């Protein structure tokens, strides 16, 4: 219970994703599997029913602290909520004892069957044996209002780290996991149910458009699609269930019920790829999507207040019991399109666009903002045939700002060598030194990542923990959507929506931007 309460308080205070995930992983590492199973039930949203009213707890707490109601009110004005104040005024015992979470939960269970007077006696016995943090948790449980502030994705990531099971598999198993019934073994040891069919396809890699390509590629062989500004996802229908995957094996579970219920009516083994966007009367609306994403619980009201649309760009079919899939044939596609057309305005088919010349394409792309798009991607017409994988797509977008920055630090994954968790720090020149400006956690391009890994091997200046300080040699074009003043950063600026455009292989550090350039940019915005 102590560790559980510690985790709870830590997550109440910590907002950084990686630290939150670390804390959850450390917790599951440290506790027994029985405690882990109960904790997991609670983290997944299980709530016990209320045993006492908070006013009763307040009365008890005041009595045991020898204070009158006015003193409780006085305490309430010092920044803590009602139940926390109750928990804080109860006098701590001479020494606290260690109880497992399992024990504490079984007390709650027996208490709910007792006469109210008897449960009050129990509460008075337990209180002084707890630390304040434990009381904060326990009292909320007594009132049936205890809820852990944690997202499904954080939980998945943490369990994946401490079990070393792939994140996507953990996510799928968690959706099957029954609070207070399933065990940790059900989650952590392989079961009959094969997750393969429910796993997402690898998400498309896109190459940034460069002007050399203009001469190399014949526009006749290519067609284009808008790239909506939203979350790229895949819907997978398997064995009567719907899985919505985002990049990096992020499973959106119970987040988009309006879409899930539609996909239940689709055939098994269908994978639908596209982009989720927020929607308002002006069309694609990023703010709506952000608000929707920030909601902890999705209710019917959330669905109507923050509507989404699914812009479908590809439909695939998975071969039974396999990870392989293919693009569906025209007949199947038409059947699917007919089906989504019957659903009121939830879906939009992302049409392929034929263009005559690159100029045509770029002219079209200049209207991307109006379309709520990041840009356009092009793909080869000839390879877009059944059974033939699309090999390459190119993506053109013009971010409003870019700077040439220098790679300063590379941090590698701290858990089980997960390569995808590399983090790159880019900096700017200031006189003879380099100031870190921004961090980017992954490259869109695997070859580049491999290149940098090789570079780091022979160019490490210093190593501290997982972080390597490398020779300031490599220059990258970094794009970002906006720039803000942030006094807490060493550079005093913060870049938002940062992307690595490309490495500038022929640039030396003298071609990189300097602090003054950054300040000029800041004063312009």
């Amino acid at each position, binding site marked *: 219970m102590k560790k559980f309460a510690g985790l709870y*308080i830590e997550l*109440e*205070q*910590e*907002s950084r994703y990686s630290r939150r995930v*670390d804390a959850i992983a450390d917790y599951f590492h440290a506790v027994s599997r029985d405690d882990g199973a109960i904790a997991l039930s609670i983290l997944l949203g299980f709530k016990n029913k209320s045993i006492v009213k908070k006013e009763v707890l307040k009365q008890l707490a005041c009595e045991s*602290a*020898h*204070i*009158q109601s*006015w*003193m409780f009110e*006085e*305490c309430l004005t*010092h*920044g*803590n*909520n009602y139940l*926390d*104040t109750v928990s*804080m*005024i109860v*006098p*701590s015992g001479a020494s606290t004892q260690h109880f497992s979470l399992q024990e504490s939960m079984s007390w709650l269970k027996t208490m709910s069957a007792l006469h109210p007077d008897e449960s009050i006696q129990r509460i008075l016995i337990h209180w002084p044996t707890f*630390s*304040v*943090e434990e009381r*904060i948790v326990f009292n909320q449980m007594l009132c049936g209002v205890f809820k852990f502030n944690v997202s499904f994705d954080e939980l998945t990531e943490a369990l994946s780290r401490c079990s070393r099971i792939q994140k996507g598999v953990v996510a799928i198993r968690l959706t099957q996991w029954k609070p207070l019934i399933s065990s940790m073994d059900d989650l952590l040891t392989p079961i009959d149910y094969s997750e393969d069919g429910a796993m997402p396809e690898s998400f498309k890699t896109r190459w940034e458009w460069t002007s050399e390509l203009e001469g190399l590629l014949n526009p006749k062989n290519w067609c284009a699609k808008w790239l909506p500004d939203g979350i790229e996802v895949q819907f997978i229908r398997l064995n009567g269930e719907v899985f919505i995957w985002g990049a990096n094996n992020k499973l959106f579970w119970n987040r988009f019920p309006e879409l899930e219920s539609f996909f239940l009516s689709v055939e098994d083994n269908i994978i639908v790829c596209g982009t989720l966007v927020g929607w308002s009367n002006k069309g694609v609306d990023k703010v709506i999507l952000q608000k929707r994403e920030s909601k902890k619980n999705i209710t019917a009201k959330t669905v109507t207040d923050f509507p989404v649309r699914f812009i479908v760009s590809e439909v695939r079919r998975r071969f039974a019991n396999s990870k392989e899939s293919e693009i569906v044939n025209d007949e199947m596609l038409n059947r699917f399109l007919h089906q989504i057309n019957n659903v009121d305005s939830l879906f939009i088919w992302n049409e392929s666009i034929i263009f005559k010349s690159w100029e045509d394409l770029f002219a079209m792309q200049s209207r991307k903002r109006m379309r709520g798009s990041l840009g356009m991607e092009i793909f080869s017409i000839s390879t877009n045939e059944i059974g033939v994988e699309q090999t390459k797509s190119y993506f053109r977008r013009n971010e409003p700002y870019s700077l040439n920055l220098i790679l300063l630090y590379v*941090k590698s994954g*701290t858990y089980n060598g997960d390569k995808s968790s590399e983090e790159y720090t880019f900096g700017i020149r200031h006189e003879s030194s380099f100031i*870190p400006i921004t961090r980017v956690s992954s490259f869109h391009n695997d070859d580049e990542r491999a290149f940098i890994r090789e570079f780091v091997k022979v160019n490490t200046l*210093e190593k*501290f*923990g*997982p*972080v390597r*300080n490398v020779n300031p040699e490599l220059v990258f074009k970094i794009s970002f959507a906006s720039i803000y003043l942030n006094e*807490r950063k*060493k550079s005093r600026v913060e870049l938002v929506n940062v992307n690595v455009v490309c490495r500038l292989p022929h640039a030396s550090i003298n071609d990189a931007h300097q602090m003054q350039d950054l300040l000029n940019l800041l004063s312009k915005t």
Partner: protein
Amino acid sequence: MALIELTKHGLYCAQADVYIDPWKSVPKALITHAHSDHARSGNGLYIAQVHCVPLLNLRLGKINAQGLKYGEQMTINGVKISFHPAGHVPGSSQIRIEYKGEVWVVSGDYKLEDDGVCTPFESVKCHSFISESTFGLPIYQWKDQHEVYAEINNWWKKNATDGVVSVIMAYSLGKAQRILKHLDQGIGKVIVHPVVGVMNEAVRDFTPDLPMDIIWNKDLTASNYRNAMLIVPPNSAEAMLEMFNPCSIAFASGWMNFRGGKYQMSSERGFTLSDHADWSSLNKAIEASDAEQIFVTHGFVKPYVKWLREQGKNAFELETLFSSNGSSEE
């Protein structure tokens, strides 16, 4: 007339013509401890516990000061004056004042736990007790300090593994030495802000087992210290922090808030560690003093007095000018 009364210059003993922790210049001042809300400049003579004197010198520059050992008595015009350990910070005292058999004790700031650095609190029997009440509400209950040290060390260890420098904001007198003493020096080097550094040196003169530290200067090579712990005074170490980026900042204080991500100031972590008595310690100290009347200052004066009266105590409010909000030195 009472032996000690409140004047516009502060607490005053007319019989001996001395002030206690005066907030305006007076000819003769008894000082409980070297925190700035208790020891102000401009007094003619400072009388304090011997270990407090060098700390006063550090804070106030050249002053005319006289030091007394704990328990040692001086007599002024028939008034017996002595200093007794308050356990608040190094050199801190309760001041005992006796005249014709009547005993008053001014607590200054105090705590009952033995923090391993300063001389632990000793209860002094008296007729009238003037007590602080910085944390005089029942929501303030400190957990075992060793649990807090373990939390600090765990946090440090985690940062060190990530290559992130740990920064703990702590008042230069008291909290800084207490933290330094309990850090697990096996994790990395401890670097202190110069303001903390000189204070540590002064305290080390009479506390030889206070661990060593590295005093920051701008020529240190930051990259040699990626696993370091920095002890800095709150909000005054910008140049130093800039050099050690990336770092993680924590604050150690008694002001508890379990929610909302951020403690006071711009820190990422909060540790509940205070050099003041919590609710139950205040009550214990008052009980142990056997005092017939209790004067409450410096903190939650009104509610605490009201509560003491409900318990049948003869308690009174004393509105002094010691700072009583979170920004004061604790």
